[in-house]
Each structure stands twice: as structure tokens, then as C-alpha cells.
């Protein structure tokens, strides 16, 4: 700790990033994730891959130099399918996470800050929702929108967001309850700040770290959920889950079209693991044991 002027001042965010940068596993996870994302979004256009054109003559071809991942039941290039499918999975993952974060943070912050009866009622509501078998709820929502669902990922976002915001709300509420009693929050209130100002200036920035960590860890769980839905046939048109489902459906003891199952599974698993490494690294960076 220096009283001198020479040292570069490090805010809490910069300090956290510095710690993150030292975490090899987190960096690896981050790198992998970036590579996968770029591949899914940029590569198909760049390399002129075609995920759509069917070519029944070339169906079920194993991986080769012309089709790196082989072809599927309709002769479509599987590499393209996997990459384009990835876009959906990733988009869904992020969009649903984002919506759950926004809802969860607002809900949790209000509940925690005001406390008392409001907090009790709000949290009981959360408990109630937790108790519902959410899988059924999600499936119900999907079925309700089944006509529009076939091309439109929106219902999926809603369904998944509905599920994930609960945990975020609880986490944020817990943090806010603690923060509310901290002296700097009291000081702000004493200065005559409005509740909105206090929450925006003092409370939320100090939960941002935790929210980032758990948000990052929510993405993989949403992606899995989406995959599961797709597997059940309730998902969006083309995603990793869908591809895995297709891969499973053609499993038979005579001819194994292993590439149909292997590649989407590997991509899916790699994405999940990378995000988990990153999330763990973020958690350590944001809340270091030695301070």
C-alpha cells in the first residue's frame, strides 16, 4: 500500500482481471470458448460452408478431406451443421442468461434492499416457483408455442429464462442483505441519497462481481437445458442438442455413423467445460482468499 503517487492505481476490476490473467485454467477455458464462438459465427461464411443444401447421394459419408466432419442423413456437410448449430446453442445460452440475470438482479436487489415484509413475500414467491417441477413448465411453454416454436427461438429464451432467474435472485438478495448494513451504504443514505441512487451507485456495483461469476456459470447450464429440450424434440431448428438427438437416432449395431454423434457432443462438452473453467477462474479472481 503506497501513499506515493508513482504507482499505477488499480481499481477493484483491474485487480480482479490481473488475478484472472494469472489463472492458467481460466485462460485456457476462455481461449477455447473464444475459438469455438468464432468458429461457429465466422467460419461458415468465411469458408463458404453450406449447412442447408441437401444432397441425398452423399448421405452418411464418414469424415474425409472434402467433408471434415462427414455428412448427415440428408447429405449435408456436417462441419457446417455443427458450426451453425453452435450459433443457436450459444445464442440461446447467452440470451437466456442475460434475461435471467436482468430479472434476477432487479428482483433480488429490491427484495434484499427493502427487506422486511416485502422481502419475505418476494422470497416466498421464489420458493414457490422453485418448488414447481420446472421441466414440466418449460415443456408446457414449448408446447403452447409449438407452432411458432419451429423457427422462433424466443419461446425457448422465455422458458429457460423463467427457470434460471430464481437462483440469481436468491444470490443477489443474499449479497444485498449484507451490503445494506455496510457503513458506506449507511453513509450514502445519511447524505440524503435516494434509494435509487444508493442501489445504483453502491449496491449494484458491489454485486456485479458475484453476478458476473454466476452469470458465466449459468450459460453452460442453459445450454444443457436447451440441448435437453432439443433432444426431446422440443427445441429450436438447428442446435447441438438437435444434432446429438439425430446422431443418437441413427445408432444401430450394423453401421455406426459415429461422427454424427461425436462431433456435436465434443463441441458441446468443450464449450461447457471451457465456460466452467472461466467461471471458476472468475470466482477466484473476484473473491480471492488472500486479500
Amino acid at each position, binding site marked *: *500500500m*503506497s*501513499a506515493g503517487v508513482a504507482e499505477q492505481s488499480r481499481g477493484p476490476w483491474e485487480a480482479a482481471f490481473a488475478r484472472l490473467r*494469472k489463472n492458467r485454467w481460466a485462460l485456457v477455458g476462455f481461449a477455447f470458448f473464444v475459438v469455438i464462438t468464432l468458429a461457429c459465427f465466422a467460419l461458415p461464411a468465411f469458408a463458404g460452408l453450406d449447412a442447408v443444401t441437401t444432397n441425398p447421394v452423399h448421405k452418411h459419408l464418414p469424415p474425409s478431406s472434402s467433408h471434415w466432419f462427414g455428412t448427415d442423413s440428408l447429405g449435408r456437410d456436417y462441419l457446417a451443421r455443427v458450426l451453425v448449430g453452435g450459433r443457436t446453442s450459444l445464442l440461446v445460452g447467452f440470451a437466456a442468461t442475460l434475461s435471467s440475470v436482468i430479472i434476477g438482479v432487479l428482483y433480488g436487489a429490491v427484495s434484499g434492499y427493502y427487506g422486511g415484509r416485502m422481502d419475505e413475500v418476494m422470497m416466498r414467491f421464489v420458493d414457490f416457483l422453485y418448488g414447481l417441477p420446472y421441466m414440466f413448465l418449460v415443456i408446457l411453454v414449448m408446447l403452447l408455442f409449438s407452432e411458432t416454436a419451429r423457427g422462433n427461438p424466443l419461446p425457448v429464451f422465455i422458458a429457460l429464462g423463467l427457470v434460471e432467474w430464481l437462483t440469481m435472485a436468491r444470490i443477489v438478495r443474499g449479497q444485498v442483505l449484507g451490503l445494506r448494513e455496510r457503513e458506506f451504504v449507511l453513509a450514502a443514505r445519511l447524505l440524503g441519497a435516494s434509494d435509487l441512487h444508493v442501489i445504483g451507485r453502491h449496491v449494484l456495483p458491489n454485486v456485479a462481481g458475484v453476478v458476473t461469476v454466476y452469470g458465466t456459470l449459468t450459460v453452460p447450464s442453459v445450454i444443457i437445458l436447451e440441448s435437453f429440450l432439443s433432444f426431446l424434440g422440443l427445441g429450436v431448428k438447428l442446435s447441438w442438442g438437435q444434432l446429438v438427438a439425430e446422431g443418437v437416432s441413427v445408432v444401430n449395431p450394423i453401421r455406426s455413423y459415429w461422427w454424427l454423434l461425436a462431433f456435436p457432443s465434443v463441441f458441446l462438452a468443450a464449450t461447457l467445460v471451457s465456460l466452467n473453467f472461466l467461471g471458476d477462474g472468475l470466482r477466484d479472481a473476484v473473491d480471492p482468499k*488472500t486479500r
Partner: protein
Amino acid sequence: MSDSDDPKAVAAKPLLDVRGLTTEFHGDDRVVRAVDGVSFTVGKGEAVGIVGESGSGKSATALSILGLLPERATTAGSVVFDGADVFGLSPAALRSLRGRRIAMVFQDPMTSLNPYLRIEDQLAEVAVLHLRLSRRDAKARAVALLDRVGIADAKSRMRSYPHELSGGMRQRVMIAMALLCDPELLILDEPTTALDVTIQAQILELLRELRRERGLSIILITHDLGIVLGLCDRVMVMYAGRIVESSPVVPLFRRPLHPYTLALLASVPRLDGSAEGRLASIGGMPPRLDQGPFRECTFAPRCVFVHDACRTRDPDLVVVEPPGDAVSAVGDARDASARARRCVLPAERMP
């Protein structure tokens, strides 16, 4: 305050002999030397105070002696307890030493006591483990001790959980636990800082009595000079990981020999003396302990008596009284009345 026999004879074979104790904490990109070449002795039945502010290394010294440092710390130097080299002991032998012959009481009893166990279980555990007593004998011994440390209605109190007791009572329990195996040396790290002032007074009185009764040697670590005056025979003042002054207690208060000691005494408001005027405060801040060997006196940037000479070298701890024993690298209290200081400026120039 030492009312035993000839201090020279008693201190001739010190119970604890620490030489050149140096402890470093290894962080990600730097090494902090928290304890830098600390040497001192504690005689049988002697009470020694280690005084310093935060970052002075006083707690780290005690933890180093007992081998209680975290993994990323390295220790050098030697610690000899009753003739045995502590650093050379096997882990089992060290464990046996701790608790049986050397006991430690920490500042916050809440973290030292297991919140899930009743007091009697925690105390009995210590006795059973170290003294091989039967459970019944262990409990009887515990009750007797709790009674001695002033816990009213000890027998029923034993059944309480830590959180049911007040801070003062918890600290008394900690003292009882420390005394369970009749240790020879008791190390106390800020034992009363977390307590209310009237309770603090009671605990200090208790420590004085216990010391008389049992001939305990004591190391008392604190930032409060007043407590040291009330309990200790000798004091060592620490700054930036080193001992800067070592002296019998009354002479230190009468006439401090190091500018830091002087400043410390001057910065504490008194109940006697003038209530007006500014308190002498010490400007600036303590040095960083990761900057490697110092080329000047560590206190120089903050010292009111600073001279050019002070910036040219890092002074050693030198015995100044009795004179004649002019240069010694060790602040040795084999002569319990010796006074040593670490300062470039001659002692005569101090006010």
C-alpha cells in the same frame, strides 16, 4: 516486578532462547519479511512483553516460535526451548510441545473455540490428549481450572457452548484451556484487545495472580504499552519486523532510548498529565517489508531526530546499558537488566 531470586541466576539458563528468527511470507510476486533477525530470551518465571503496531511482526514472531505459520512462509534462525531445538522437532514432538509445555492464547476466542462443542468437551479433549487423563479426571481438572480463572458456577457453565458466553468469559476459558497441562510458557497475543475495559482489568489481574502462583513464563504481545507496564518484567519494542528497543519495563517508561518508543509513548493520551494540546503523532507510514535489505534505518523517514548518518546504514541492535558491553549483535537479556537499542544516534542525545 520479578520477585524471584537473583535475576542473573534465574535468567542464566533461559527457558526460551530465540536467535536470529527470520520469517518470510511468499506471495505471488513478492516476498515479505515479516520478522527480521529477532533474538531474545525468556527466563523461567519471567514475563516479557512484545510491543508494536500492526505490521511490526509481533504476532508473526509468536507464530514462528510455535511453528504455526501458513504454508507459504519460511522461517530461519533458531528457537531453543529448555535446551531442545524447536525447529528440529518432528511434527509429533512439536504438537506435544505445544499445549503441554508452551500454550498460546489468541486475541479472538471465538475463532479459537469450536462453536459446535461444549466447553467441557473442548477442555476435556485437551487433557485427555496431552495428559492421558481419564475423561472423568479431565473434567474434574477442567472444572477446577475454570473456577480458578473466575468463572462462577463452573460446573454448570462447562455445559455451555461458546456462543452462550460473553467475550470476557470466553477469554477466561481460553486461559483455562491454556493452563490445563501446566505449561511452563504462556504466549498471549493481544489477549484483551477485544474485551471491554473493566473486563480487561480483571483478566490482567488474573494473569498476574496466575503468574505468581505457578511461576509461569509469559510472552505478552500487544500494542498497548499500559498493559505491558502492568504485567511484564521486560519489554521489546518491534518495528518493521525488528526489535528496536529491549529493556526492563520501568526504565523504558522512565526514559525510552529509541525515538520510536518515545514517539509511541508520546502519542498515547494519558489520564494523568495535561489534557490539552496536540498529541505527538508519528507522521508517515511504516516501510514496506518486501523491499529487501534496508540501506538506512527503517524508522528514519518518520523519526524526529533523524540525521544524515541515519540514512547511511541500517543499525544493529546494540546493548547500551550496562555500558562496556558496547557492541553486541544480540539484544540479549541474559542480564535481565540490560537495555539495548537499534539507533544510529547515541543514547545520550535522547531527551
